[in-house]
Every structure is written in structure tokens, then in C-alpha cells.
């Protein structure tokens, strides 16, 4: 009976998860990784006018270790791939990725020998933002979608699995 509280949709657990998700979704600190044209639109989204900080992306974190969301804005070339992979690996869990722009989603117009055809070949992507480049509104909408996604997360499942093993 005591175990009930920890398993599945138990009341305590789900409330605890909601609390964690609330905290995580309300402060997705971005790592702005702008490599090309989309980087300029990302700057516009962070600057006055659009002000992405309204949605909790208050502090653009230039160090991967203190960031939650990797906003990959711009083309990734094959020369850049090891760098991108390394940045992603350096980020602490939990981490999410927004692929901003056609190049990051699929390679865009640059179907050439040196361009990676979409960053999802290298790192997992949570939200794709199409457009070449997308408007700042597009990026903000992607951030909101990501917040929705974070809210439906189950951050305590791994711990639960450990617990079950113990029992």
C-alpha cells in the first residue's frame, strides 16, 4: 500500500512531477548557437522588440554546461559536425534542442558536398522551426511548443525503474 504512492500515476508522484516540470518549463535557458543567417533572426528575437526573455529564456547561456535548450540556428557543415556533437554532449541533462531554420532541419537549399542534411542526423531534435530564416515569432512559438512538451515529461520515471528493481 505504501508503494502505491510511488508507482504509476500515484498522487504524490504526479504532483512532484508537475512541480518539477513547472520549474523546468518556465526557465528554459537557451544556448544560442547561431552559425548563419538564422543567427541574425535569433538575435532579433532576443533583442528589444521581440524579447524572448518574456517566456523564461531570460539568460542566454553561452556555456553549454549551464544551458537547457540548444537553439541551433543556421547551417551545420560537415566540418562543424564534431563541434556540434561535442557541444551537445557537454550540456547537462535535462536538455532539449530546437532546430531553427531550413538548414538545421534538412539542409535547406544547400544540398551540396559540404553541408549536413539536417542536424537530426547527429543529435536528437525536439522542435523543428521551418523557414529560411523563420521569423522571430516562429522561434518564440517553437519555444512555447517546447514548454508544452516539457510539461508532459515524466522526469521521475528513471528513478522509479530503479526503485522497482529494488523491490
Amino acid at each position: 500500500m505504501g508503494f502505491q504512492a510511488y508507482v504509476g500515476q500515484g498522487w504524490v508522484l504526479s504532483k512532484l512531477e508537475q512541480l518539477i516540470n513547472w520549474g523546468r518549463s518556465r526557465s528554459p535557458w537557451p544556448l544560442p548557437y547561431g552559425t548563419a543567417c538564422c543567427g541574425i533572426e535569433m538575435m532579433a528575437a532576443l533583442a528589444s522588440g521581440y524579447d524572448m526573455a518574456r517566456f523564461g529564456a531570460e539568460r542566454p547561456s553561452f556555456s553549454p554546461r549551464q544551458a537547457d535548450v540548444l537553439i541551433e540556428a543556421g547551417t551545420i557543415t560537415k566540418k562543424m559536425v564534431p563541434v556540434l556533437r561535442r557541444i551537445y554532449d557537454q550540456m547537462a541533462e535535462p536538455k532539449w534542442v530546437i532546430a531553427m531554420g531550413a538548414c538545421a532541419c534538412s539542409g535547406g537549399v544547400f544540398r551540396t558536398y559540404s553541408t549536413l542534411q539536417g542536424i537530426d542526423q547527429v543529435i536528437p531534435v525536439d522542435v523543428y522551426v521551418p523557414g529560411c530564416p523563420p521569423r522571430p515569432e516562429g522561434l518564440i512559438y517553437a519555444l512555447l511548443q517546447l514548454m508544452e512538451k516539457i510539461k508532459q515529461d515524466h522526469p521521475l520515471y528513471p528513478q522509479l525503474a530503479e526503485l522497482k528493481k529494488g523491490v
Partner: protein
Amino acid sequence: MSRQLDAQAGHGTGDFVTINIGPSHPAMHGTLRVVALTDGETIVEADPEIGYLHRGVEKLAENLTYHQFIPITDRLNYCSAITNNVAYEMAVEKLMGIEIPDKAKVIRSIMMELARISDHIVCVGILGVDLGAFTPFFYLFIQREELYEIFEWYNGARLTNTFGRIGGVEADLPEDFEERWRRLVPNLRKAIDETDKLLTHNRIWMDRTIGVTAFSAEDALNWGFTGPCLRACGVKRDLRKDEPYYLYDQLSFEVPVGKHGDVFDRYMVRMIEMEESIKLVDQLLKIYKEFGPDDPLMAKVPKVLKGPEGEVYAAIESPNGELGFYVKGDGSDKPYRVKIRPPCYMVYQAFPELVKGEMVADLIACLSSLNIIAGELDR
């Protein structure tokens, strides 16, 4: 070897440390990488590595038709896409022997000057951010949003405009364009003035910029500098004056020239050029008013463009300097070879020379003031 390097650095213990800056570094604009050998805080040697944004644009050009390549040129210098479009169109028109109507020339010039302002805003704003002055960035970017709205109003895109067609422009300026421009000018002037007040005579700003990475005019020419970086060194060279294209020989404007070629001079040249561009747009609008609404916007262009066998080079003064396109045709509907001459490519290769003997913090200042745009650097 180390003793020799000691002498170059002037002081220090001879314990050299190699540091890697970039490509993922907030001050390296995303895709630039510098490996620097340092002696304490002093840079003994710097070795920039590029190619992190090499997208194969020139190869792509050989596989697209003349028209299809225009949108790709947007993505070269994405801070001022319009100048890239016009430079490419100019080269193709020269190859085909097309003379565009005067009204199209005026519209192109107006849009190019607006693009120049928006490019310089990015450069000055980012230079401030990299040196720790965040406020000018916000002041300037509010006005930049307005410029974006004008671009969007005219051709539907904020950043990558795909402006113009081969043989002219696609549309006339919107009816109340001038009115909107008049509304924007006081705000723009105010933002530039406030940036000027905040930065130019600021003690910290002066200490961080004056005399930093100074360059002589002779060296600058030897390294192939053009644009604001060359003018900051004291060479009065502007393609709009020296090899006038379109209607620039009928307009009066000043070409600002620096003296020492340091970060401060580059900043000042850009600030003054913004003012000059505002004046230029005013003059161009005056000329524009002389045209009627039914004057042609496009020259006669065949439906399928086939470039003759031959090669041309056409260059314009882009915000960063001489932006040239070499186009070679072979009689088919695709260019045989396109070579882009990006202005900041030549500037950036002198980077080791520029930062030698400077502090690490000055490297950041120098890099921002050169306005290196990775898109056109690596192509």
C-alpha cells in the same frame, strides 16, 4: 625559437600557452576559430581557421540557372542581403549586355543604402556587445526592426530578400514609401546620436578601441583591404566614387576616412557612413519622384536566359567593401563558373598580422570591428 618569440612579445617569461578560441564562442560569431599562442595576456601568434560555414555556394551556382542563383546570394552576407543580390544581378546583366531602366537603378540604390544602414547597425551593435556595452545594441536594434519592416513591406521577406530580377526590379516602391521613410529618419538619427553619445567619448570605450590593432595604409593595400577597414587606414577609396555605377556620380556624399586604421577608426567610419546613407536615400527619393508610375521597371529580357560565351567581373561597394562577382558563361542556361569576391575574406586573412602583440581581449575587439560575416567568408 622561444627566445626569438620572447623578443617579439617584448616581455614575459617565455612560458607560452596555446589557446583555442571558437568556433563555438560567443565572441567568435558562431563559426570562426582562432588558435593563438599567448605569452601571458599577449598574443604572440594567431592562426585563424575558416571553412566552418563552407556550404559549397560556388559549386551550387554551376548547377542552378542564372535566375535560380539569386536567392542563394542572399545567404552570403546575410546582414545586407540586398547588396549581394544587386552585385550578382549586375554581373549577369553585364555578361548578357542588358542595360536596366533608370527607375530600376534608383530603386536598387535606395534599397542598397537601406541595407548598408542595417549592416552597419549590426556591426556597431555587436562591437558594443563584445566590448561589454549592451545598451547601444538595444537602441539600434529597435530601428533595425523598422528597416526590416520596410524590406518586408516591399518584398515580403525580412532578412533574405531576394531583391531584384535580372534586368531590373520586380515591383515599384510602395505608394507611401517616402512618408514611412520620413517617419523613420528622426528615430534612426536619434538612435545613432544616442549610440554616439554613449560610446564615442566614453572613457572605457576609448581605452578599449583607440590604438588597438592599428594598421598602415600600405599594409592594408598589400593585404587587399577594401571598404570601411581600408578607409579607416586613411585610403579614400569607395567604389561609389571611384568606379561609379548606377546614379552614384550624380549624388553628393562624403567618404569618411580614418587615420590610424584602429578599432576606433573603423567604428567611426561606420557611424559616419550611416549618416551619409540617410542623406543618400533622401537624394535618391528626390530623383525617384521624377519618374512616372508607368515608367518601365524591367529591361527586355528573354524568357530563358542563356549566357554568351565569355567572362565578366562586376563589383559594387557593399557595406563591407568591394563585393565582386566573376561570372563565366558557356552558352547554356547555367553559369559555367561563378566566383564571389567577398570583402571580408581579404580582411580576415590579415588577422594574424593585426593582432600580433596585442592583448587577448583586443583580439575580440578587432574581430568585431572587422565585421567578419561567416556566410560570405566561407561561401
